[in-house]
């Protein structure tokens, strides 16, 4: 048997390696047969329409074209396209397509290119957007002069490319581009910013990236954008400001080459990491204490659990089976896992009393694992022969079909004890009511808060939330398992103390402040499209229903009463914890 495990791991690694290597890397075939024409709009302005035959790979083969992008080069002799004329378009699939360039400047001459951006279905190991390919240029076309009296097209200023680096907590497939927006960019003159990228020292090419909107963000003119790039290559970038109409303006300098570096730790989860480390550390401490000879760790009584053995005894006396329902959720839910662990303990008791346990399950995998647990429980009790595998039954994985089937078992076999532990949903009341009418002793436990009132209403004992997770350890009285309970207990203590201290420190601010006119801010906050991404303070300001007045009032107030350092810290922390 040892040999099996020896080749299991290498095979897995080999498989993964082969998987990664077998991915295609060729770009798609380019678009062909570009033709240009001038289209007059009703208002007299002219736009250039480019028609082309789509990539040969589009709609065939392993490569799939996700997008076509129209690019134009100024003048009739520029060898490479300078910039996209319009955002990407054209629905993928074979055949011909057309793309319009509405921003062409009257009187200028252009040549057009069509870039086909690939997107692979099976790509798992590469970044967003497959390699793209650029078509041969169209013949030069001159845009007709504007009708007399048209307003002149104003030139816009250039943006500044500040630097390129891997963003924080990067998965190794993204680069963050820092730039300063054009001096006259008010969000209207400039339509958007676009990037070209170059692989190493190669030429700059178009690539697919998300739209970089114009205008200051959060009032800041220095901005950053995170762009997905394929890993393992150093990229250089060139930034353009694209005006609403007219020629794009490039930043004075291109960026230095930078490769996307993956991060190995997400620092925005640092607090969580500390909390987890604290839990693990406390667990280790308590495991050590538990391992000391004669260690006795106290935990309070949980009456619902004490009742289980009693109820099993009663069932035995009445000669009726025990019903154990491990919830209806999949095995991936921790409540189900906790319930299955309890099932093992309960079946041990059942085996000792030599009575019968019925376990209807909603999920086949839960039934499979549950059967193992029961088998093991009977084995531990020294009665492996009394175990009847058919008593662990898969009913149906449909919630109410399962409920109907379990109801049937309750109605016709009349178990004297019903134990419902795990994750339950709406069926909880149907099960508990049927059990109540049957006069069974009922013990329920779940972390599902919405179902707890029904269990409380119809069951004799109800385990609330965390108590469910304590059952398995509680039933064994094994110091090591109790130790993990203790560890969680002390984390709870820490959490409670933190909450209390923070609240107390925030309180003085409340008393010292006068009340201003109340507003229905919950509603206002939620209705503003920007609210979710802003910090709390901005949100409160930006979202007042009577924006101007309220904002003014608050600004004045905050100017006069700046928040204390501690308040600022709490606000920062809260915002951070909520989003991290």
């Amino acid at each position, binding site marked *: 048997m040892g040999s099996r495990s020896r080749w299991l791991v290498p095979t897995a690694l080999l498989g993964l390696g082969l998987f990664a290597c077998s991915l295609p890397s060729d770009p798609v075939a380019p678009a062909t047969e570009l033709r240009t024409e001038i289209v007059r709009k009703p208002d007299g302005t002219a736009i250039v329409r480019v028609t082309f035959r789509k990539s040969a790979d589009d*709609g065939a083969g392993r490569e*799939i074209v*996700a*997008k076509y992008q129209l690019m134009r080069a100024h003048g009739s002799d520029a060898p490479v396209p300078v910039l996209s004329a319009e955002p*990407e378009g054209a*629905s*993928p*699939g074979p055949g011909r397509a057309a793309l319009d360039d509405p921003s062409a400047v009257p009187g200028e001459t252009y040549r057009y290119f069509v870039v086909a951006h690939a*997107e*692979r*279905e099976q790509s*798992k190991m590469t970044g*967003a957007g497959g390699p793209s390919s650029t078509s041969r240029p169209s013949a030069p076309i001159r845009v007709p002069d504007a009708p007399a009296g048209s307003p002149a097209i104003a030139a816009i200023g250039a943006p500044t490319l500040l630097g390129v680096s891997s963003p924080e907590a990067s998965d190794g497939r993204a680069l963050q581009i820092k730039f300063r927006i054009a001096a006259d960019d008010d969000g209207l003159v400039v339509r958007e910013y676009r990037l070209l990228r170059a692989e190493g020292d190669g030429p700059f090419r178009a690539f697919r990236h*998300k*739209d970089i909107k114009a205008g200051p963000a959060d009032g800041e003119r220095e901005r950053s954008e995170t762009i*997905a790039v394929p890993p393992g290559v150093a990229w250089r970038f060139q930034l353009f400001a694209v005006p609403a109409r007219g020629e794009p303006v490039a930043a004075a300098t291109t960026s230095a080459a930078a490769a996307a570096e993956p991060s190995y730790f997400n620092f925005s989860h640092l607090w969580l990491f500390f909390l987890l480390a604290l839990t693990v550390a406390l667990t280790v401490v308590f495991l050590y204490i538990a391992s000391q000879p004669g260690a006795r760790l106290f935990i309070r009584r*949980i*009456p*619902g*659990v004490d*009742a289980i053995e009693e109820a099993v005894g009663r069932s035995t006396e009445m000669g009726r089976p025990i019903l154990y329902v491990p919830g209806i*959720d*999949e095995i*991936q839910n921790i409540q189900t896992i906790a319930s299955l662990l309890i099932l093992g303990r309960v079946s041990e008791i059942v085996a000792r009393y030599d009575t019968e346990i019925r376990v209807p399950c909603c999920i086949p995998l839960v039934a499979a694992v549950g059967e193992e647990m029961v088998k093991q429980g009977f084995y531990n009790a020294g009665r492996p022969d009394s175990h009847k595998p058919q008593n662990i039954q898969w009913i149906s994985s449909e919630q*109410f079909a399962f409920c109907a089937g379990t109801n049937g078992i309750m109605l016709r076999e009349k178990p004297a004890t019903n134990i419902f532990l795990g994750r339950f*949903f*709406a069926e909880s009341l149907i099960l508990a009511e049927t059990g*109540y009418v049957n006069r069974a002793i009922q*013990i329920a436990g779940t972390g599902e*808060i*919405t179902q707890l009132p029904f269990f*409380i*209403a*119809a*069951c*004799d*004992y*109800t*385990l*609330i939330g965390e*108590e469910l997770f304590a059952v398995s350890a509680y039933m064994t009285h094994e110091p090591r398992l109790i130790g993990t309970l203790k560890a969680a207990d002390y984390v709870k203590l820490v959490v409670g103390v933190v909450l209390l201290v923070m609240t107390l420190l925030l309180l003085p601010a409340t008393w010292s402040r006068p009340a201003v006119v109340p507003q*229905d801010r*919950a*509603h206002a*906050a*939620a*209705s*503003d*499209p920007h*609210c*979710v*991404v802003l910090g709390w303070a901005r949100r409160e300001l930006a979202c007042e229903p009577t924006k101007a007045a309220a904002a003014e009032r608050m600004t004045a107030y905050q100017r006069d009463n700046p928040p204390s350092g501690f308040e600022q810290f709490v606000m920062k922390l809260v915002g951070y914890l*909520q*989003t991290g």
Partner: protein
Amino acid sequence: MLEKLATLDRRWLFLVMAIAIIVPLLVPVSLPFEASPPVRATYDAVEALRPGQTVLLSIDYDPAARPEVEPWARAVLRHLLRRRVKIVMMTLWDKAPPIVRSLINEIVLGEYNQRRGYFAPDQPGGRLAQDYAPYRYGEDYVFLGYKDGKEIVIAGMGQNLRQMFPVAEAEREGGDKIPVARIPVLSGISSLRDFALILEASAGFPGAKEYVQQVVTRYRLRFAAATTAVSVTDLSPYYPEQMLGLIGGMRGSAEYEQLVEAPGLGTSGLNVLTFGQIFVILAIVLGNVIFFLQRRLRPRSSPGAGGGVG
């Protein structure tokens, strides 16, 4: 007499309940009501969408939960069409695809594209989008289909939508599935982060809670959901910090219907609901009256189930 009442056969309660539901349904009455802030917030968020933005509408309920969330699903779909946004639909519930298909058939293809019902332009309340053009499959809307995997799919979509949904349902039932890479609606959408708004009609697990836990908090998504009334208390901790709107049950659906001025099953159901609910309140009151009378007569008896917390 009191003894008899205390151990009243519960079937009498069932009978009265049935009457409380069926009679108002057959003899309609209507009561005025106002939209609550979380519902209005959702409405406002949809109202704030610009034409051409892409919205994810996840339909996660089964036939059993239809009466509660479907009125909202219909109302919001109409609202989205009116806003002329691109709609990506999907589901995490294996029994939902027929529901989604019928929503598409009735509202997108039937009403909007045919300019009927709510969208009839010649009717006084007709609410066609300003830049009207029929919605086309793949270009203006798409139904990705059902994906098994529950919250794992949600987490996965947060990172890469296309990996989770490599193919989408075809326009016609039984047709070949379409690779998502070839669907124009999804251009520029690689993960949940790229949607202007994520809306969900959620009837339980996996649903709104999993969205919040797996992705909304993590990526700061704009998310609103309609849920069954049961889940409202479960989700209200997330409003308004994590969820920008929350529509609770038939009542919430009715409020939304009122906001978009398309009264439907939610509104008519709400009136019936009132009677059923009053009956439940009366049942509690009656139970307590009996309990106190009984206690006065025999101070130490304790009837009914012992609802001990253990």
